[in-house]
């Protein structure tokens, strides 16, 4: 039986991270990515709505320590 072709995400992840994603994992990963996107949107929206003063305070916070 012919194997399905890897999708764009699988190819990128394999090339960049060296991680081969089995096809059967795709639905779960896509659901997880969707949730991450939701949280990324919440983070982006909230910080974009901060006052100028709060934005400056946020900018002063260190990122990765």
């Amino acid at each position, binding site marked *: 039986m012919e194997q399905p072709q890897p999708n764009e995400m699988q190819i990128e992840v394999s090339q960049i991270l060296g991680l081969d994603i089995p096809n059967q994992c795709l639905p779960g990963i896509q659901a997880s990515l969707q949730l991450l996107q939701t949280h990324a949107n*919440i*983070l982006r929206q909230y910080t974009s709505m901060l006052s100028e003063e709060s934005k400056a305070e946020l900018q002063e916070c260190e990122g990765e320590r």
Partner: protein
Amino acid sequence: MSALDQPVAKIAALVRSGQLSSVALVTESLTRIRTYQSALNCFTRVLESEALADATRIDEQVARGSNPGALAGVPFACKDLFDVKGLSTTAGAKNRVNAKPATRDAEAVNRLKGEGAILMGTLNMDEYAYGFATINAHFGVTRNPHDTQRLAGGSSGGSASSVSAGLVPFSIGSDTNGSVRVPAGLCGIFGIRPAENTIPMQGVFPFVRSLDTVGPFARSIDDLQMVYRVLADPSENNASYSIPWSTSDEPPVRIARLGGWFEKNATTEVLHAVQSLMTHLGSDAVVNLPEAETARSASYIMTAAQGGALHLDKLREDAMSYDPAVRDRLIAGTMVPFGLYNKAVQFREYFRKQVEKQFESYDLLIAPCTPCVAPLVDAPHVWIDGKSVPARANLGIFTQPLSIVGMPILSVPWMRPPSSDPTTEKGLPIGIQIATWPGRENLLFAFAKRLESGGLIGSRCPIQHVS
């Protein structure tokens, strides 16, 4: 009442005085574990011969006239992510069952044993601590002693269930996003997520290094504080936090409950528990942290990214050996862009400052541990924004935002008043978080002790043990 059900300090005092044999205590604990393990599935390994040998040594020490320590002969157990010399640290994962055995005990285990406590075994958890449910594909589901049809919560589900059922007087687990507070709350016992850098992480299998903490579980605030003191040796503490050990301070009066995010999605019963506590305390102060939802998102992103990065090599090697629900979340985490991750870390610092400002006006902040009582094992879901979503990822919606602050947070069991309707959710436990700023741990414990003495909070063992 059996000696095993006495306060930890009393058990240890009886052992030290020679009035109680450590071997007898361990034997009773083993009997209880054998009796309830099949119904609860708390333990992943029971260390019967090792525990009996250690107990014999304690009894011999006492016979020689030497003092075995503050926890002399008290049985305990640890989440299966603490190194135990000679055992593989599974972290709840099938693909670590045959990992190289640990060459020494985790520092937390070492400190407890150093004070004479007896390790009875290792406890079940969500695989790699990635979950709030203790639904483990390899080791099975850990069940709640208050209703075995329900979840114990997670990820330290075995730690909470074993103490709640009276199998051991105390246990230890870990809390990254709520993994002590959620199961402690659902199982009706006490737990604490300590301030960061308070209890050493050496020998603990990591999940999210910047958020991981070690926390104890116990049946009373005195027991919890006693174990906490042994774990958080003041001489080892981070210099930036001083922990005054005196409990003579007057309990604080400036108390507020957290509103907004911490009310939304909570059931009426959970809201009632928090409100009734506030009413008893004579406070109607409410603090809104408008950043709370975003803080949860920041924590979610940091967890996914750091968890994914930690497991990348193993995922490359053998992704299919993971629990599918954990594997897919970890793989998704490997794809989080650094820019997004860094924004989340930056927001953490910002949020920490916003919370710190609240502690200029208040000493303690109160919030529910979970949005609802323990969900059913056969329907492991919670209701969020009108949708049924997996308990595994969402039971910690109220603990997760507070985790990233790095402050000490107690989880205490609300004591239902006798008049409360017993038909409502079968009288299942409801946990309440009490948070303070690092360095005020003495106030936290003293305040909780006052609540416990007043009958507002307290643990009730759902099993009538016969000795």
